[in-house]
């Protein structure tokens, strides 16, 4: 099968084009000799199936950054039959050197001039045919986001793939490339995005910029809950009905152990977790919209001065924000940071970001133990705590992991996300959840059921069960924090993934839905609940996070630090909170 690689500078719309070409069928895979995973998908070009690979965005072909090494290693070790090179049509002047470098590789090249919609708005005119003639490579003018001009791409790819040729390295020198672009592209002397200019005047205002930013983030979180909570309640109700109306009559004649395992173990656990899926998908969609508009680069601009005092920079802050969705992609996103010190420091603080999996634990406990008016403030306090812990860690470790990288970042114009992008992102989140569900959550909840129901003869979740014994064993460490034996078991399983925490409580108490909420309300008070939430917030997010840190750093020492440090902080913070709170309540 022939192989086609997508190449381009960062922010040229590579992933948008990749998604446009392949739909949502991409797979993440390992490549020999590469330390990172790359997205690839099969694509029908004419009558032949080819493999399309999405390479990381790079600024030049001879650089030394990790991403640049990935691209050069890929191109030297994997036979590539076509390089599809993406350019941002509205910023061609600074990409010419890159085009020249790529054309000197011994691989056929197809130039894709993307974002033609923005270029047109700026009054930029491109003579694609003339450019193709002068450079000797095919040129497609298109907008991957809106689909404009996409129909030329596959035929152009087919043309190159079916034309045999012995040598592909271009003999044109850099000045020829520059001349060709100069002749075929006209840029008006005053070109800027009017809407972006006026929006930035407000959103990047020296005094109002930051307050507006925090208001926007607050609005996002409020929006997620205003829409998500009723959806979550509806899903939970539906799943409970499914059990009583469908499954229980169906399994009535089955052996009790099988019934227990399937209904109290698997179904209760999974359905409790699944009821949170609408909330999480919504959260990612909202964060995705903020990201797609280009507002996150503005957040980096606004926060950089503050972050530099903590040894971090504006990009670290954006990664922390991304971590509110899921820590794993945020950790991988730190690859854009070239200073090892800054990258490690950022990776050390990202796991404190209150990710969506932890959010579901908090939503559950807050609903059970706090009133509706208190609820948003309790959740906000946890978000504030999340940032405080990140900053505290950063201050303590900034002299060990020193930042020596330059801070330079592109500011894209504001863009409207398309419905297509939003739907695709939501769907990818559902898929991601199902993937995790199949791996960790099913095994997790089944294991919890076994531990709480064995040895044979014990009453489920009692002190005599295996889980009860584990809880007993940990009691001296966790009871000063107000964390009971049942919650301890949930914490132990939460080490694997936070999605399991609520699922395992459902299994431990043998209940789901409103019944589970009522039981928890009767068993613990608000101080115990808040102490538990603090612990869940701060200690290790999940096994995937640890695996990602290990993968990205290849350092056992750093990975251990990123497990042990948060665990110590979690214990101290919960201890201080619980002992102080109980002291004042008693007084």
């Amino acid at each position, binding site marked *: 099968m022939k192989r086609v690689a997508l190449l381009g500078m960062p922010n040229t719309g590579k992933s948008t084009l990749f998604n446009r070409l392949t739909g949502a069928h991409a797979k993440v895979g390992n490549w020999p000799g590469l330390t990172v995973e790359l997205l690839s998908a099969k694509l029908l070009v004419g009558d032949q199936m080819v493999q399309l690979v999405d390479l990381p965005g790079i600024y030049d072909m001879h650089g030394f950054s990790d991403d640049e090494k990935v691209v050069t290693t890929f191109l030297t070790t994997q036979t590539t039959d076509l390089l599809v090179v993406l350019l941002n049509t509205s*910023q061609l002047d600074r990409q010419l050197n890159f085009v020249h470098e790529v054309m000197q590789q011994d691989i056929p090249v197809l130039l894709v001039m993307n974002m033609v919609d923005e270029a047109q708005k700026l009054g930029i005119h491109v003579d694609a045919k003339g450019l193709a003639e002068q450079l000797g490579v095919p040129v497609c003018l298109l907008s991957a986001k809106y689909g404009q001009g996409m129909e030329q791409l596959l035929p152009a790819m087919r043309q190159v793939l079916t034309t045999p040729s012995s040598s592909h390295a271009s003999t044109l020198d850099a000045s020829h490339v520059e001349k060709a672009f100069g002749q075929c592209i006209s840029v008006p002397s005053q070109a800027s995005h009017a809407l972006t200019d006026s929006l930035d005047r407000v959103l990047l205002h020296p005094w109002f910029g930051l307050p507006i930013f925090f208001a926007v983030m607050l609005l996002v979180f409020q929006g997620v809950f205003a829409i998500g909570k009723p959806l979550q309640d509806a899903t939970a109700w539906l799943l409970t009905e499914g059990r009583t109306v469908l499954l229980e009559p169906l399994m009535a004649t089955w052996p009790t152990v099988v019934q227990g395992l399937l209904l109290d173990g698997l179904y209760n656990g999974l359905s409790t977790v699944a009821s949170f899926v609408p909330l999480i998908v919504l959260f990612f969609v909202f964060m995705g919209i903020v990201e797609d508009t280009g507002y996150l680069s503005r957040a980096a601009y606004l926060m950089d001065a503050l972050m530099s005092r903590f040894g971090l920079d*504006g990009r670290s802050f954006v990664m922390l924000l991304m971590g509110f969705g899921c820590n794993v992609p945020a950790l991988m996103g730190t690859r854009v940071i070239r200073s090892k010190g800054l990258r490690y420091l950022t990776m050390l603080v990202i796991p404190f970001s209150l990710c969506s999996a932890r959010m579901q634990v908090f939503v559950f406990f807050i609903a059970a133990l706090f009133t509706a008016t208190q609820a948003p403030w309790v959740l906000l306090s946890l978000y504030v705590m999340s940032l405080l812990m990140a900053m505290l860690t950063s201050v303590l470790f900034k002299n060990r992991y020193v930042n020596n990288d330059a*801070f*330079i970042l592109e500011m894209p114009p504001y863009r409207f996300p398309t419905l297509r992008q939003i739907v695709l992102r939501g769907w990818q989140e559902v898929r991601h959840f199902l993937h995790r569900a199949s791996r960790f959550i099913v095994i997790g909840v089944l294991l919890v059921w076994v531990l709480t129901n064995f040895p044979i003869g014990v009453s489920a979740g009692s002190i005599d069960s295996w889980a009860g014994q584990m809880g007993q064993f940990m009691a001296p460490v966790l009871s000063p924090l107000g964390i009971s034996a049942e919650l301890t078991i949930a914490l132990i399983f939460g080490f694997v993934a936070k999605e399991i925490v609520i699922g395992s409580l459902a299994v431990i108490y043998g209940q789901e839905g409103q019944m589970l909420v009522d039981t928890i309300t009767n068993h613990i008070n608000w101080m115990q609940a808040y102490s538990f939430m603090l612990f869940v917030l701060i200690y290790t997010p999940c096994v995937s996070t640890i695996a990602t840190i290990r993968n990205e750093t290849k350092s056992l020492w750093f990975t251990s630090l990123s497990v042990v440090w948060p665990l110590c902080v979690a214990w101290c913070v919960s201890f201080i909170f619980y002992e102080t709170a109980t002291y004042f309540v008693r007084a």
Partner: protein
Amino acid sequence: MPKSSQLNSNAATLRTLEGLHVGESARIVALNVEADLSKRFSALGLRPGNWVRVLRSASLGGPMHLRIGTTELILRRHEARSIALAP
């Protein structure tokens, strides 16, 4: 354009992007950074010969918001210091 009165004869040769005020434009003449960083600056449009304009500056000593041609960037003042401008 900055008024020439703002620059004495000594500072004229040392004029850097850091000293450029909001709303002003100037031509870049040299990048006093390592080769690797110089490549990245060039790829983002910061290279000798190009005109750069300061759109705004973040408060508390935060980064500068720049425009070069149709590209907009943010850059810390520390890095802006290593970009030499034509007098």
